[in-house]
């Protein structure tokens, strides 16, 4: 369960931590691209930046919650990971940003850690971030599998249809249910 002192710290720092987390994510891109992703506000001119920003915002609410909601985590992470899994990153680079919230909060709340209740809230965020990271691996692999399927489908369909239409291969006909009765 949440506690008052911890919640206060979180709500007081929310925007700053989100902004730092977003910065950490954006730093994984070369400087010119990072600037573009960060500064271009129109979501249609900058779909990646928009997805990353919203993703971090939503993900923060997930890790700051009392109870980890895996559905909400997936909703927050999926739009981000759909992009990052395609970009030129290794898997650890693509997902590493999730753990950075722990460092950010740790550095920021060193002074407040003496209080037991605050420490509890901060530990909870760290635990939730770990869970989110695990969920992220599942999503990452789903995205990769999706791409492999699209590749395989294109390779298969490009020729198969011609063979079927030219009757060089024959597909099984639909079975009339009345005949099987």
């Amino acid at each position, binding site marked *: 369960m949440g506690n008052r002192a911890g919640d206060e710290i979180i709500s007081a720092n929310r925007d700053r931590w989100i902004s730092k987390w977003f910065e*950490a994510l954006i*730093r*994984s*891109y*070369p*400087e*010119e*691209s*990072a600037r*573009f*992703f960060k500064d*271009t506000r*129109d*979501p*249609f*001119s*900058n*779909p*990646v930046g928009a997805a990353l920003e919203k993703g971090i915002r939503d993900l923060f609410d997930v890790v700051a919650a009392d109870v980890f909601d895996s559905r909400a985590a997936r909703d927050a992470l999926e739009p981000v990971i*759909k*992009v990052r899994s*395609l*970009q*030129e990153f290794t898997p*650890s*680079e693509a997902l*590493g940003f999730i*753990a*950075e919230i*722990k*460092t950010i909060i740790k550095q920021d709340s060193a002074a407040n850690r003496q209080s037991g209740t605050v420490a509890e809230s901060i530990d909870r965020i760290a635990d939730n971030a770990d869970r989110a990271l695990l969920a992220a691996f599942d999503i990452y692999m789903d995205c990769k599998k*999706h*791409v492999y399927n*699209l*590749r*395989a*489908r*294109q*390779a298969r*369909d*490009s020729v198969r*249809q*011609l063979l079927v*239409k*030219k009757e060089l291969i024959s597909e099984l006909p639909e079975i009339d249910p009345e005949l099987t009765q």
Partner: protein
Amino acid sequence: MAETPKPDELFENIDHGMPDEPWEEVPPDLSEGRFCYPTKKKNLEYLDMPTTTKDEWSPADAEWPIPDNWKEIIHEGFKDRLEKYRSLKVFMDTCVRCGACADKCHFFIGTGDPKNMPVLRAELLRSVYRNDFTTAGKILGRIAGGRPLTRQVLKEWFSYFYQCTECRRCSVYCPYGIDTAEVTMMARELLSLLGLNINWILEPAANCFRTGNHLGIQPHAFREMIEFFCDDIEEITGVKIEPTFNRKGAEILFITPSGDVFADPGTYTMMGYLLLFEHLGLDYTLSTYASEGGNFGLFTSSEMMKRLNAKMYAEAGRLGVKWILGGECGHMWRVIHQYMDTMNGPADFGETPKSPVTGTVFENAASTRMVHITEFTADLLRNNKLKLDPSRNDNKVVTFHDSCNPSRAMGLLEEPRYVLKHACNHFYEMPENTIREQTFCCGSGSGLNTEEIMELRLLGGLPRANAVKYVHDKYGVNMLACICAIDRAALPPLMDYWVPGVDVTGIHEMVGNALLMEGEAERTMDLRFEPLPYAEETEEDADE
């Protein structure tokens, strides 16, 4: 035993900073999945093009199979082109690096790779130009923005000029009117001097040269495929269509990309054309030799483009038709509208196209003798010559993707919309800065629609998909219409990844669904054999 590093330590080791090297020294990523497979040597041989020194090779190889005097070949090739094309020289000299184009490329927007900024992509070529062909560059070298041509530069060219779809969105924003697609075209020509081209371009080009179309469908098979569609049409509508092939003396020759003949969902668009022509009683014929509207020469070299383009005109002359009606294709229209006249034209057959139904004369096509089918159909609609029941498409909530070439290279913006709005009741536009001349590319144009670079294609197509997602979420759009065969092949996987639940169609598939044909049976299915919306209702009523 070594101590296992803590997660924090691992994350701290990830370097998020800018690389220490200047951009010129960052090598391109030529790992598997980041490049298109190179062409087979036989395609180059068939097209009389320079070849690599080995049959099989990979861009991931450290050593590429190019002749020892490769630098000399490129230098001479560059020099020839600078003398031949004043535009190239102007494009090399005029860029002031204002950056207006930088964030307009769909590949940059998606990948975040700075070398996909059009300005930097062009700089890959421009830096060599400065070094080799300008006085300042020859004397000052790097200080004047020059850099010598090295094997790494060549690899960079291959990587990034095959990560450009020649869509020309960047050119729309360039205050100097630099056509970056033409910079890419020149770079690809130079690479081709060493046999460095990709299979997804060269194989279709070679097939087109031999059999008349990209896949190498032979004349009898082409004919059988069309007849197969006619059987489907008869099953759906009860109307028997019997198109003619290679018929001398027909008024009109119809040419469409071969994708409409062999790849879904283009095939349904083909059925739409056939229904339309039958509806009008048009005097037309199809050619089994000029069986391809697409021209992959555009992605290879101007010489190849000219050779492939000439085929259509030779066939039109041989058959003695008056003019050519062209199907829903993308880059074919850039070739016809912008290059054909200087390369092969003006057309040496027939007459200025005139619609036999409305009497409209298409003066805009006086020189090329070729009319785009959406211009033709829009004119029919404007003159009330078509009987349509758009409610047959009521289960489709449609938006329109302006295919890059018809929109930016020929200004065909209103006609497809005009036709769609007559054929469908539910039409919604995507946001303004993603349509018309600002349209975003499908991410797979100019010969990049190949499966080995699926990740790159999905990233390049993200800005387009993102705008589709917006209208999908807001208006329930479930159908993305376009007028390009590559779009019809590239957009389905793009939608599948980013916006599941949105299908892809050509404009004339929607027209074909809506057309009220003389003597037709009551239709219960659309051209995909899926139930019509009111047929579903009727069934439900009957159940009740």
